[in-house]
């Protein structure tokens, strides 16, 4: 598994690769940021940050203007959520945590009583296409007790 390290002349560096310490004089010394474990952690953190950033960046574009104006009021509202595929148990559970599921409408899932924070949380999920304000329905939706 160990791979030899090269110095600037293409020679093999002596010393323990894992330790990040090279005792040969005159060669480039391995610094702490050359260490495999540090680089691994940095890579993982960068991945997580990138993933989160992607969610934050694309999130607002998925919320329609109608819903955005409704969100400013800060009240609970009914929303329609379009995903890229029919919702499964996993997605239902997420919807259930944010509001009350009340059936499908125009190929979207209708979630009732969602707070603006919930809409923002939902918009950051990459598998969601569009979130819109639901038209008031004639079927009385079940209000979840607070």
């Amino acid at each position, binding site marked *: 598994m160990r*791979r030899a390290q090269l110095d600037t002349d*293409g020679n093999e560096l002596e010393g323990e690769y*894992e330790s990040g310490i090279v005792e040969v004089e005159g060669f480039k010394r391995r610094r702490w940021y050359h260490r*495999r*474990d540090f680089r691994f*952690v940095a890579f993982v953190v960068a991945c997580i940050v990138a*993933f989160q950033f992607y969610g934050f960046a694309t999130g607002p574009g998925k919320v329609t203007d109608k819903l955005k104006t409704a969100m400013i009021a800060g009240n609970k509202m009914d929303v329609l959520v379009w995903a890229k595929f029919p919702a499964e148990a996993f*997605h239902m559970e997420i919807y259930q945590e944010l509001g009350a599921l009340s059936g499908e409408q125009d190929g979207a899932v209708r979630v009732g009583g969602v707070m603006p924070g919930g809409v923002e949380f939902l918009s950051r*999920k990459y*598998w969601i296409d569009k979130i819109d304000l639901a038209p008031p329905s004639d079927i009385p939706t079940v209000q979840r007790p607070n």
Partner: protein
Amino acid sequence: MQKKSNVSSLTQPRQITAFDRFMWQFNQLLKIDAMNLVILVVVILIGWSIISESIPNPARYLPSPMAVVLSSVDMMVKGLLPSYFSDTLTRLVIGSAIGLAAGIPFGLLLGLNRTVADMFHPMMNFFQSVSGIAIFPIVVIWYGNSDMTVLVVILYTSFFPIAFNVLSGVREIPIRYVNAARTLGASRYQVMKDVLFPGAMPHIATGSRLSIGFAWRAVIAGEMLAGRQGLGWMIFTGQDTDSTAEVILGMVMIGLTWIILDHYLLRPIEADTIERWGLVQR
């Protein structure tokens, strides 16, 4: 003409370019193990596909590698895989961080005094050998099927191995080192800082890796048994709902995650610590 150019190329070494270095590294890679690994993986995949083609009902017993890849793409698109994966890793990180943060000082404190160390050594050994999975039913009765149950099991599995290892490490430090430090007028705190802690350092490193390994197993088992979302839960429900492709996908992910974690994080730290502090032992 021919000869002259040869001589000049000998007397004036060619400038080594980045491309040369890249090729050199590439050749090394081929020479050592990457090629073998690729051949091995290909052979295994071909054998696996042949077996899964030849058995009846492969979707249930052994889905082909293609089916596993497709199911992973499907779960990626639907957002299940990243969610499960991050849930499991978060549990592992939180559980083992708390376990290590509590276990290392605990082991050191017990090791401060020889009598206390002798006193608690058998008890720590006892708890270390009762596996976390065995106490799982008790924890379920206490906390029900909640995140707390999984966390307690992980804490238990990571705390006792590390505490036991640190305690053993402190006990194995030759008493003459402590005596020498005390003769030279070191205080109790200085003895701990300059003798006991560095002396136990290799054991702390080995114990940490061991207990994180145990914690990883405990996370998987805990998710299976307590029914919390994560990789363990994924393979468990995959078996329930007859989607064996998901089970195999989960197993491969569990294996790869541990290999990567071990190779890129735990092993370098352990090797480095032992190299740096290991001499104190002799």
